[in-house]
C-alpha cells in the first residue's frame, strides 16, 4: 500500500519541522494560554460583578466570540490589529504587525472567551460563604478575589482549563490560513515542495496525536488526584 511512497522526506525535514514549526506552535500556544487565562478571568469577574456596565460588555464579548468561527476571527484580527495599533499610538497609517504578534493577539482574544466561561463556572463553584467570610474579615474585593476565591476556582477548574489548552494547541494549526510557518505550515511547505503530501500529512497527524493524547492522559490522571484530595 505504501510502496510508492518516500518516508525519507520526513527524516530530511525533521530539523526544519521542529526547530521552526513546532517552536512557533508551542510558543504561540503558551503565550495565548497565559494571555487568554488572564483576560478570560477578568472577563469572568466582569460578568459576575454587580455592575451592569461591566456585566453587559463582557457578556456580549464572550457570546460574540463564541458564535463566530475561529477562521473568521483570525482574518478579522489580521486586518484589524494594524488599524487598532495605529489608533493606539496615534499614527496616520495602519502600522505593521508581524504574523507572530497578530496570531498571539488573535488567539489570546479568542480563547479568552472560552477560558472566561470556564472561570465563571470556577468562581461560582466556590461557596458564597467564603466571599462573605472574606468581607467579614475586612478584606476588600481584590483581596477576597485574589486570596480566597480565585485560588480555589483555579484549582477546581484546572483539568478543564488544561483540556481547553489542548484544544488551543490543536487550533493553532489554523494559522495556516495566514501562510504562517507553524508545525503544520512547515510540513505543508515541504509537502508541496517535494510533492510528498501523503507522507508529510500522515506524519503531522501522528505527531499531533501523540502530543495531544499524552497531554489528555496526564489531565485525566490529574483530575483523579484532585478528586481524591477533595
Amino acid at each position, binding site marked *: *500500500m505504501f510502496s510508492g511512497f518516500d518516508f525519507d522526506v520526513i527524516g530530511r525535514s525533521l530539523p526544519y519541522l521542529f526547530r521552526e514549526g513546532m517552536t512557533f506552535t508551542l510558543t504561540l500556544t503558551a503565550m495565548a494560554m497565559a494571555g487568554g487565562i488572564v483576560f478570560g478571568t477578568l472577563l469572568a469577574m466582569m460578568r459576575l460583578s454587580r455592575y451592569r456596565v461591566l456585566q453587559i460588555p463582557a457578556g456580549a464579548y464572550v457570546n*460574540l466570540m463564541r*458564535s*463566530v*468561527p*475561529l*477562521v*473568521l476571527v483570525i*482574518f*478579522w484580527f489580521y*486586518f*484589524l490589529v494594524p*488599524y487598532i495599533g*495605529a*489608533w493606539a499610538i496615534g499614527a*496616520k*497609517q*495602519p502600522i505593521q504587525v508581524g504574523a507572530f504578534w497578530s496570531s498571539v493577539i488573535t488567539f489570546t482574544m479568542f480563547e479568552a472567551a*472560552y477560558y472566561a*466561561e*470556564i472561570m465563571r*463556572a*470556577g468562581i461560582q463553584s466556590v461557596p458564597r460563604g467564603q466571599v462573605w467570610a472574606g468581607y467579614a474579615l475586612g478584606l476588600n474585593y481584590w483581596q477576597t478575589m485574589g486570596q480566597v476565591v480565585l485560588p480555589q476556582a483555579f484549582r477546581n*477548574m484546572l483539568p*478543564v*482549563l488544561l*483540556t*481547553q489548552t*489542548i*484544544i488551543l494547541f*490543536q*487550533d493553532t*494549526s*489554523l494559522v*495556516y*490560513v495566514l501562510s504562517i510557518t507553524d508545525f*503544520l505550515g512547515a510540513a*505543508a511547505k515541504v509537502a508541496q515542495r517535494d510533492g510528498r*503530501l*501523503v507522507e508529510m*500529512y*500522515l506524519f*503531522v*497527524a501522528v505527531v*499531533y*496525536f501523540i502530543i*495531544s*493524547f499524552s497531554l*489528555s492522559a496526564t489531565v485525566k490522571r490529574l483530575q483523579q488526584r484532585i478528586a481524591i484530595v477533595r
Partner: protein
Amino acid sequence: MQYTWNWNVFWQAAPDGSGAYLGWLIAGLGWTLGAALSAWIIALALGATVGTLRTTPMTWVVRLGNAYVELFRNIPLLVQMFLWYFVLPELLPNALGDAMKQMVPPWASFWPAVLCLGFYTSARVAEQVRAGIQSLPRGQGMAATAVGLTLPQAYRYVLLPQALRIILPPLTSEFMNIIKNSSVALTIGLVELTARARAMQEFSFQVFEAFTAATVIYVLVTLVVVFGMRYLERRVAVPGLISAGGAPMAGH
C-alpha cells in the same frame, strides 16, 4: 484611522457577473449550512452508535469505541481535513481514488469536508452520549433487565430516551460547532461563508464591511439554532424528569 467605509458595497456587482456581493455571501451561507447539515447526519448516526456501544458490558467493543473517540479528538480538525482531501484518495484503490479526485469542483471539496466534519463531530457526540447514559442511575438498566427486557430493548425503551433528552443542551453546542467548524473547509477549497467574505474583501477592498456581514450572519444563525433547540427541548420534555445541570466543558 484612514479607512473609507462603504456600506453600499453589498449591492455592487461582484466581478464574476453573478450579481451583487450580497448574493455571494448568501450563496456562501448556503454551502456552510449544506455542509454542516449533511455532516450533522453522519455525526449523530455514528456518534449515537459509538457512544451507546461504549456503555455496553462488552469490553472489546468499549475499547474499540474509546480508540475511535481518541483518534478523532486528538488530531486537529485542519489536519483531518487534509487527510480526507489529500491523503485518502492516494491510499484508496486507484479507481476509487481517481474518482474522488475527478469530481466536479464544488463537490470535490464538499464531500471530503462533509465526511471530515461528520467523523470529527461524531467522536464528540459519542462522548456526550456515553456521558448521558452513564449519568442515569444504574438501577434504571438493572430494572429494565429485571422486568425481562433484552439489552437492546433496555437501551431502546429505557436508557436512550432519557439519555438523549439529558444531552440535548450539549448537542446544541455541538451543532453550533459543526456550523462554525465548516469554515475550516475553506482550506480545501470549499467556498462557504467565510471564504466568500474573504473573496469579497480581496475583490472589493472593503475588509471590515465583508467581515462584519459574515459575523452578523453567523450570529443570526447561532440565535436561530439556540431558539430552535430550546423549542425542541420544551417539546420533548417529560414532566417531572429533572434535566441535568451542565458541568463546564472545554470545547469550541
